[in-house]
């Protein structure tokens, strides 16, 4: 695959020589996605599920067709196992408020990893506080990975929910989620798997993983902002109570009582983001047209180049596993004596975009004994030239600050 050709699909790179190294925050979008979204608004726009006229039926077909696409893409058994949300955060809140609040009892335990994003952490704090349960953490080893011993010692017969990110948004560590799911199921717990950082880079097969819930955001995988997905096993979703109440999620509404619609409408109150769903389906088509094999190969080459370059600078501390087969896309590092916020400002002056801060993972950074990092995150449209610009900018930052160091 020719990256130079692929970059032409992304209008943001037209006449803009930015080294965009923040795809972990949000990806760029190819014109194939933007055009599909535009086409929906220009040709098929109306409120789905509501009208009986042709245009409304077209909107309904666009929306439900997108749902079928998502189901096929992640190999869900049924399309109604796909619930559209606005992002992964909303999907996680739906699970916590509906499944969590109804099923967690006094004395139960919820187990998550120390590398969770706040969105797979703060909702569980609320659930355990409300239900007198306990929130337990699986900690990482010196190589920024979860040991099997650690997993097995934390997930017990008392564990009712395990929340785990597939790939850490700070460390890029790929977690052994299949093992975690097996261990959780042997102990009778359900697993909430956050694939927000993995699905842009690797194939997700929910039946093969056997996860009970899987969540992700569209905007990190080339789709528009504001569309996300909750996958849940049908028998679990069927038994859950609705999260957000209102129009289109009901069956009969009486003055004092309501019966709810079947899946998936039960969890989709109000007019939905049809344009976003259409864009998500288009993003999945685009990823399939390139192929995950090619994406993984291209990204691995650039990320490994970046790792070797960063490791060669004596003023850089990299927070990355040495087992590169357990790592993808995300590189966190610090520059000796320079705060990440200053590093990112100096990199911006040479048109390199990275993230600095705590990356919505304060407990992880506290565990590592730091309060922020620089984070460069890669996608298949990044090149080795982007890495070279990053290294140039880091040298510039180091020189600028060295002048004043005593």
């Amino acid at each position, binding site marked *: 695959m020719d990256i130079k050709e692929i970059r032409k699909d992304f209008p943001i790179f037209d006449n803009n020589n930015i080294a965009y190294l923040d795809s972990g925050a949000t990806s760029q979008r190819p014109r194939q996605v933007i055009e599909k979204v535009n086409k929906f608004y220009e040709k098929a726009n109306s409120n789905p599920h509501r009208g009986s006229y042709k245009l409304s039926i077209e909107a309904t077909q666009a929306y439900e067709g997108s749902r079928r696409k998502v189901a096929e893409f992640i190999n869900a058994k049924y399309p109604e196992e796909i619930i559209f949300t606005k992002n992964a955060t909303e999907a996680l809140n739906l699970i916590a408020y509906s499944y969590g609040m109804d099923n967690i009892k006094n004395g139960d335990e919820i187990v998550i990893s120390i590398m969770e994003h706040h969105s797979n952490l703060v909702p569980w704090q609320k659930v355990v506080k409300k239900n007198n349960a306990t929130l337990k953490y699986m900690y990482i080893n010196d190589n920024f990975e979860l040991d099997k011993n650690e997993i097995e010692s934390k997930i017990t017969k008392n564990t009712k929910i395990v929340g785990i990110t597939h790939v850490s948004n700070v460390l890029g560590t790929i977690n052994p989620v299949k093992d975690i799911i097996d261990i959780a199921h042997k102990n009778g717990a359900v697993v909430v798997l956050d694939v927000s950082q993995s699905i842009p880079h690797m194939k997700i097969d929910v039946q093969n993983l056997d996860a009970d819930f899987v969540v992700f955001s569209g905007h990190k995988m080339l789709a528009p902002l504001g569309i996300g997905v909750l996958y849940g096993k049908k028998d679990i979703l069927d038994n859950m109570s609705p999260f957000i109440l209102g129009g289109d999620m009901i069956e009969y509404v009486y003055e004092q009582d309501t019966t709810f619609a079947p899946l998936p409408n039960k969890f989709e109150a109000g007019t939905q983001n049809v344009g976003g769903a259409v864009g998500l389906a288009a993003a999945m088509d685009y990823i399939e047209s390139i192929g995950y094999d090619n994406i993984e190969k291209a990204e691995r080459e650039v990320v490994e180049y970046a790792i070797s370059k960063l490791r060669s600078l004596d003023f850089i501390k990299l927070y990355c596993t040495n087992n590169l087969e357990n790592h993808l896309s995300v590189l966190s590092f610090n520059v000796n004596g320079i705060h990440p*916020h*200053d590093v990112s*400002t100096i990199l911006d*002056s040479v048109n390199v975009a990275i993230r600095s801060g*705590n990356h919505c993972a304060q407990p992880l950074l506290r565990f590592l004994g730091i*309060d922020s990092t620089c984070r460069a995150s890669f996608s298949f449209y990044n090149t080795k030239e982007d890495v070279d610009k990053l290294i140039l900018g880091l040298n510039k930052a180091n020189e600028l*600050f060295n002048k*004043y160091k*005593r």
Partner: protein
Amino acid sequence: MDDLTDVYNDIIMEHSLASYNKRKLEDADMVEKGHNPNCGDEIELELKLDGDIIKDLAFTGHGCAISQSSTSIMIDVLKGKTVKEAMDIIKTFIGMIKREIKDDEELKKLDEAIAFRNISNMPARVKCALLAWHTLEDMLNKK
């Protein structure tokens, strides 16, 4: 931003890397914490008053070069001033950063703190420059 030294100029860099104002006061009258949750900047200001005069001011904490130097330079500028004068200078500094005050005559009272003038060209860093000033403003308002 065209030139990094507009922001990372000598005075800002000197204060950020080795500040004599970064210390603990033995007999502070007031203590106030300031925090930027997004970037993790944290400072603690300590104030010693002599009647209405800011007799001593010091800080501890950690953060980026902009937040650290802004805190240190603020201390240099405000030490020895009355509370009323300090509040006026704080308002002028905030006004400069928000580009509401551009008049050079009016900005003179900021003394060395005028070094932060170009931060207004960098919206992502405005909060760093303002942290200490807002923190002190909160503290003096409690007096």
